[in-house]
């Protein structure tokens, strides 16, 4: 009896510690989510003083709308390419950083390779607009190597704007993946490699049969997390191309923003935002499953 009451008291103490966080998250995450879902069923939100119930009208509108479909397919192309590039660059750099060299050199390169991660998206956007300007340094280097004509446009071209964005996002986004994979690499027991050496395995075999299988859970988790983060992106595109030229780089994030804050179609924007969140939810379930696998 005494133990039971003590554990009950203990539970109340625990809630006291957690309460501020949970209250904030409920007030500023759960409540707004309810608001956005609820208002996606009305004629217009914020602007309309007496909104009418329209049911799934906005969802039907979105899913049959060419711009939405364009934005969705751009988002998928952008996200899948970004995640693949992040994982490739991240794994390559992590392997280099994990190689036993001078400790100070190792720290130096680790600090250096994380650098892109600290910059705000506005700085990333402005720097890459400068680098990829028709008269910029990237074109200069490519033109003296004979790959392109001088004056080639990147962000201003319907064909090259999306690849330019993917490149920019690859630079800004790989460090987190790299750091996570590095932590994963450091967690692989050395004895596995030693045993393989005794068995006469070469470096490639060790990589394929030890490193990759051992890293698999981390790659899966971090890849999914990166997918979730990139899928909902808005800022980088907004600051470089604004979704243009035309709709060639329109992604779901910029489409939602324009619907809401340029066209004041808040309920339609809400419907697209709910679709974005629901599709994220599916990915999030996979992520949580992958996390549980790591335990």
């Amino acid at each position, binding site marked *: 009896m005494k133990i039971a009451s003590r554990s009950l008291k203990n539970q109340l103490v625990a809630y006291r510690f957690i309460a501020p966080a949970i209250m904030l998250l409920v007030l500023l995450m759960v409540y707004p989510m309810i608001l956005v879902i609820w208002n996606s069923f009305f004629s217009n939100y914020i602007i309309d003083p007496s909104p009418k119930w329209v049911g799934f009208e906005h969802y039907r509108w979105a899913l049959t709308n060419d711009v939405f479909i364009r934005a969705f397919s751009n988002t998928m192309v952008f996200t899948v390419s970004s995640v693949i590039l992040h994982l490739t660059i991240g794994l390559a750099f992590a392997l280099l950083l994990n190689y036993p*060299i001078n400790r100070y050199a190792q720290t130096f390169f680790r600090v250096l390779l994380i650098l892109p991660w600290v910059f705000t998206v506005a700085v990333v956007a402005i720097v890459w607009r400068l680098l990829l300007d028709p008269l910029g340094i990237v074109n200069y280097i490519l033109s003296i190597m004979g790959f392109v004509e001088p004056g080639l446009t990147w962000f201003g071209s319907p064909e090259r704007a999306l690849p330019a964005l993917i490149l920019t996002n690859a630079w800004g986004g790989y460090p*987190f993946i790299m750091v996570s994979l590095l932590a994963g690499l450091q967690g692989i027991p050395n004895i596995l490699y030693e045993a393989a050496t005794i068995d006469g395995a070469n470096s490639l075999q060790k990589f394929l049969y030890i490193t990759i299988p051992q890293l698999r859970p981390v790659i899966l988790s971090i890849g999914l997390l990166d997918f979730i983060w990139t899928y909902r992106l808005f800022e980088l595109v907004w600051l470089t191309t604004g979704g243009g030229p035309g709709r060639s780089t329109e992604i779901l994030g910029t489409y939602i923003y324009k619907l809401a804050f340029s066209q004041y179609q808040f309920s339609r924007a809400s419907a697209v935002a709910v679709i974005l969140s629901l599709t994220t939810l599916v990915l999030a379930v996979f992520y949580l499953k992958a996390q549980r696998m790591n335990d």
Partner: protein
Amino acid sequence: MKSTKQSTSRARVIVYILLVLSGLFALFPVLWMFLMSIRPNVEIFKWPPTFLPEEFTLEPYTKVLNNSTYLRFFFNSYIVALVVTFSTVIVAILAGYGFSRFNFRGKKILNLFVVSTQMIPPITLLIPYFSMVVAFRLFDTYTALFLTYIVLTLPYAILMMTSYFNTISKELDEAVMIDGGSRFYALWRILVPLSLPGIIATTVFSFLLSWNEFAFALTLTKSTSMRTIPVGISLLMGQHAYEWNVMMAISILGSAPVLLLYLVAQRYFLSGMTSGAIKE
């Protein structure tokens, strides 16, 4: 024996070369930004481009530092980032302690709740935030940014603090309590000092996120005097006469605080940064 030694030293040379190339990939855009910030604007798009400026000038920097509008962006960013970081760390320490030290009903669900809130796209929240901020008459105020930023930083900060507290033995704070200390005493006097690396990591993470945030600041503030650094930079980009050298100078100056913080704390930061994303 000799041949393996040779092959490892050759491998080492290759690794160094690849590391230098990787370093160039990471550093070059930053270096280029700096090199553009110390030359006159007419030199920016000179063809062929020159690596070093033909005419060295610090004028872009003095232009930024003598402009009260730009300085106000810095002031706003500091206020917002400091308040958000401080509140996040306090709330995350309390919640992390709760999650790490107690077994209570609903713990699993609440933990799952914290993890899932991270999955909500900020762009989705932006629409209801706009209506809430207008309804509560908080549009174009610091409070609007404080509240919305805490929600961005808090979930991950809680996971970071929980996993750091989990690395410290429970017996330690139990011993304090047996000696008559209270739970708060155990937390603030024993656990917090021991968790300093984790707290530093959480602090850097929160500061970086709130200093760098763009979308909420763009939408929930309006007047130039309320803008933060990232929005300020984007406003410069929207102007007709591009002063690229000044834009580069404000980008450098605007990145300096987070850059310094990162360099000073990187030791603590790396392990802490991944602890919330991947369970080991």
